[in-house]
């Protein structure tokens, strides 16, 4: 059986590649573990603030949510904006006014359902209270960002857009830079007076042309073709996407320096790319352990996804996201510098 010959060779071959082996056996365990941490922590109770609410309502609401009494609507609004709460309820003239954050349809749904449920339980108690002037309080629901029209795909769209731009650029840039090294041309051009950073930067510029086109296509298709919900300026979104793509380009070329072949480059996908998706905001990490949150901050995609969500769904402007943009650019600069250093492997100067 010649198949055995092939099999034997393959076992020897892969067996000698310690890194591939490690990845094959350890990466799945790691990713499944991360997923389990995220899933078990994302079933958190929604946080709802109440302003001058009746005690019965607060008691009913406390059962299913984390309810906090705040002094006035201004404070409640601030807390909502800064993400300390998911919604707030203000009672004025006995009419409840609900304001939800609105960027995540899942949270919006559960929050409004829980508030309605709490209001119902208050009504049930009413006959005993014998106050005839009270009518059924139908809550008016406002949205801080977006509206009730936003569906699950809309809320995911900024993340998906950011991720796909990031992923495709990473792959193409990584493979292409790898090819330059495998074919010997990298070594060859390093035998010329070319400076190391000029090579890295040249790659960045050359690919920049293509990733700009790619980014415009992806974004245009999502915004005008799929008509995903967007509240933000098209060009501001494009700016975020381009910075994200540029940074991914830098990361792809950098990581290709640590891969001997395409096989090893693709191994970076489960350890570098997949965790980024998990941590970039698809899942609510607010209740996750501290280390999960800390981890999410080392992934560039987290910042890209946040900026995209802020602009597309929350309709925020450049002044609100400049910090994220600076972090994305900083990541890119670090990756390019590291890559320039990594080329020392080929030429010491």
């Amino acid at each position, binding site marked *: 059986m010649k198949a055995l010959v092939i099999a034997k060779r393959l076992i020897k071959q892969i067996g000698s590649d310690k890194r591939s082996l490690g990845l094959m056996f350890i990466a799945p365990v790691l990713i499944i573990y991360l997923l389990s941490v995220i899933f078990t922590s994302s079933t958190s109770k929604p946080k709802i603030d109440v302003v001058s609410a009746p005690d019965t309502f607060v008691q009913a609401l406390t059962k299913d949510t984390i309810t906090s009494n705040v002094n006035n609507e201004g404070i409640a609004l601030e807390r909502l904006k800064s993400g300390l709460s998911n919604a707030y309820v203000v009672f004025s003239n006995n009419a409840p006014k609900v304001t939800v954050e609105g960027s995540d349809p899942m949270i919006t749904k559960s929050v409004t359902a829980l508030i309605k449920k709490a209001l119902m339980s208050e009504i049930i108690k009413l006959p005993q209270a014998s106050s005839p002037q009270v009518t059924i309080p139908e809550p008016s629901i406002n949205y801080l960002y977006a509206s009730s029209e936003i569906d699950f795909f809309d809320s995911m769209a900024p993340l998906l857009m950011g991720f796909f731009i990031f992923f495709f650029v990473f792959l193409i840039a990584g493979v292409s830079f790898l090819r330059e090294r495998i*074919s010997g041309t990298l070594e060859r051009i390093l035998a*010329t*007076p070319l400076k190391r950073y000029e090579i890295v930067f040249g790659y960045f510029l050359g690919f920049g042309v293509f990733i700009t086109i790619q980014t415009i296509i992806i974004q245009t298709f999502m915004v005008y073709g799929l008509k995903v919900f967007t509240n933000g300026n098209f060009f501001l979104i494009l700016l975020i996407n381009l910075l994200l793509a540029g940074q991914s380009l830098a990361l792809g070329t950098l990581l290709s320096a640590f891969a001997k072949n395409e096989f090893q480059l693709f191994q970076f996908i489960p350890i570098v790319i997949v965790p980024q998706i998990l941590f970039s905001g698809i899942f609510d990490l607010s209740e996750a352990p501290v280390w999960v949150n800390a981890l999410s901050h080392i992934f560039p995609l987290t910042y890209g996804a946040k900026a995209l969500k802020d602009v597309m769904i929350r309709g925020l402007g450049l002044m609100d996201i400049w910090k994220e943009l600076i972090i994305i650019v900083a990541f890119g600069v670090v990756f390019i510098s590291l890559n320039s250093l990594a080329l020392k492997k080929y030429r*010491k100067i």
Partner: protein
Amino acid sequence: MQSLVEVRNLKQQFGTQVVLENVSLDIFEGEILGVLGPSGAGKTTLVKAIVGMNQPTSGSINILGTKMPSLSAVRNIGYMAQSDALYEDLNAIDNLLFFGELYGIKGKEAKERTMELLEIVKLLDDSKKQIKNFSGGMKRRLSLAAALFHKPKILILDEPTVGIDPVLRMEFWKEFERIKNAGTAIIVTTHVMDEARHCQRLALIRNGGIIALGSPRELLDQSSTENLEDAFLYFSGVKGGYSL
């Protein structure tokens, strides 16, 4: 004669592995120095150290008086690597123009030089073909042209004639001869003993050290042998007929 390249007591070590030790040699204007030795002897490592890719562990390399590694000194070197480092998706002209531009040669000058070189290496008819459709011999010829583009004072050729047919090999050596006569110093590595007769001087290299240095005639006389294969065995300390 002026020494263009001075290698002094070069030691090159990677981790714990010593690849070159105590290597000293000079390369003079208008000569072809053959670096002759079996694969694994350290030929490519020596060449890469001269090109400035590696920092010597100890010892020194000077190119036209500049200590290597130095990017400005690299300008004087034309390098043809062991593998054909060409861009498969580009045609011959674009490949050459690219390498020219790395040395700052652009525009009309670059185009003229490209055509001149394509003529020298007899690739004019295939100049618009993508390299992936080139044969091995054609790729070698184009690699040589790329190394010559900026008219370097020192030409370093790492196994330039591997895998090419005897006719082309003959033409390669004729071309090297012409380049040499124009005043360029050439370093050629090879493991084909037969090619050594084209060189003015030979450095026999084995296990990371130079075992003999001199003209082919001198080496034959010193070892009182008839051919370089036997001379190599003699200098390796293996006097007798059996192979390594």
